């Protein structure tokens, strides 16, 4: 077991963090918005946290505690998301998707050019404070949050806004506000995940949190199923694990298989692997069977 962990531990750590990224992408989808922006906020958050740590260490002082860095990441990510939401959420769906990709590109350019603070192309080292258990704990807490969220007033609003924004509005739900909350919360999550990712990589360059990761996080969310929070986490685990376990058999062509798998799953399971509708159908069936048994 410990040998297994020695080999695959780091893979799981990345998978869990990807789970957080996927959850932030999922939050956008949940409010009916296709947004890749959380990665841009993650980048901003990671740089701020990394810089704070760097200055401390350079001064020969002890780094801030991990909790502080996580907090900074969430605040920065949430703030950036909140500010940009006023521009982005005005846009139509197609344009919004493009604009959020543009935002990720912009984040990299800003990081490159603020080289006094970010180290530009050279980057900035990030001291690692987290352990696997920290990451698991964070993912656990976030999962519980999503569980509560789903059955809360806000969760119902999100469902309604995603499916029928017009109806939601006529039922008294402020669609724009619901979207802004979701967008901001996605930024908070993105910021958190960004700090974790930077600590995992232990080095931050403008491409650490970039378009590829944005695509992969949204792919994980949809692959696992973007209708309940379990989906993105499962998607992220599979997305990371499959190529890793394929590696011994396929070598460098594992990516080809990975891509093909992604297409196949999307073609045959358009709602992703985890579909709450399916569960409801099962539980209804089971209930009706039970009542029949009781009756007979």
């Amino acid at each position, binding site marked *: 077991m410990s040998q297994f962990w020695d080999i695959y531990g780091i893979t799981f750590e990345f998978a869990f963090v990807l789970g957080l990224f996927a959850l932030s992408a999922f939050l956008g989808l949940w409010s009916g918005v296709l947004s890749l922006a959380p990665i841009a906020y993650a980048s901003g958050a990671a740089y701020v946290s990394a810089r704070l740590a760097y200055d401390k260490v350079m001064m020969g002082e002890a780094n801030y505690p991990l909790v502080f860095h996580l907090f900074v990441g969430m605040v920065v990510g949430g703030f950036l998301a909140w500010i940009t939401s006023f521009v982005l959420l005005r846009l139509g769906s197609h344009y919004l998707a493009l604009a959020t990709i543009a935002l990720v590109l912009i984040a990299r350019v800003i990081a490159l050019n603020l080289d006094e603070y970010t180290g530009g192309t050279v980057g900035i080292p990030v001291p690692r404070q987290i352990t696997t258990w920290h990451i698991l704990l964070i993912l656990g807490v976030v999962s519980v949050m999503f569980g509560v969220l789903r059955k809360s*007033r806000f969760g119902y*609003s999100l469902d309604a806004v995603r499916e029928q924004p017009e109806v*939601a509005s*006529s039922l008294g739900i402020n669609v724009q506000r619901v979207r802004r909350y979701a967008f901001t919360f996605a930024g908070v999550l993105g910021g958190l995940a960004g700090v974790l990712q930077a600590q995992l990589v232990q080095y931050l360059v403008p491409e650490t949190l970039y378009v590829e990761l944005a695509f992969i996080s949204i792919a994980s969310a949809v692959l696992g199923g973007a209708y309940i929070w379990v989906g993105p986490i499962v998607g992220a685990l599979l997305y990371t694990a499959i190529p890793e376990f394929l590696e011994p058999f396929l070598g460098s062509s594992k990516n080809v298989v990975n891509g093909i798998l992604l297409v196949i799953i999307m073609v045959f399971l358009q709602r992703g692997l985890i579909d709450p509708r399916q569960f*409801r159908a099962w539980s209804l069936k089971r209930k009706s069977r039970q009542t029949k048994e009781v009756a007979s």
Partner: protein
Amino acid sequence: MSQLDVVSLTRQFGGLTAVKDLSFSVSPGAIAGLVGPNGAGKTTVINMVSGIDKPTSGTISIAGQDTSTIKGHEFVRLGIARTYQNMKMFHGLSVIDHVIVGLDSRRKTTFFHALVPNPIERKERAAMRDKAMEFLKVMSIDHLAESEATTLPYGLQRRLEIARALATEPKLLLLDEPTAGMNQQESSEVAEVLRGLNQKGLTLLVVEHNIKFVRDLCQEVTVINFGEKLLSGTPQEVFNSQLVREAYLGKQRDERLATFQSLRAGTHRNINMGEFAS
């Protein structure tokens, strides 16, 4: 004071005038009908009255309050709720969840209650379920609470849609073609349900092109075509008026049936607007 006052309402889409200088009102406690063939601008009117769309000019007052500065999602507070011609169910949500969404405006919890488990949220959730169940009972679909809404038959979805709208506790319920796609049996069931709601004090505005349905149900009727008002009054006055009978329903009684059918198909287009203006 009227429950609803529409004054010189006009809506233009680019060069197209969908609704032109339309005025009518609905008295409190009434079942009012807005009648006209397909494409007459009925849905455009109802969209504006429910706050989804904004008029190009003219005013809409609800219980005396002008709505021109009120945002779409705030119309609920004025006691307006509506249903849709194509029902617009929330895909993937259960029946009871639809009504819980409708209860949103009555909930007190905020976004922050949604992030950590807390007793306030839990209590409210239980209360909302009970409340939602009551509305399902009113529409006699409480036995289907856990089914997926979009898998229900048409008539039941219609009932659910009304339950969802009722959950906002409206004073005025707008119904956009409540009998669309229904047979005689289902239509009269819907009529029965609506009459029951009206007896409990709810004002109704029914948009229809099913004239029989309107004649049987409504107390006041406004007829529009090409976005303009032809006539309003009691169903007797409107449907027996020489004006409407000659121009709108056809001169011969025998022709009426044919006209009804063409009205249904939305192909009835031979009304001379000039005659009514004079």
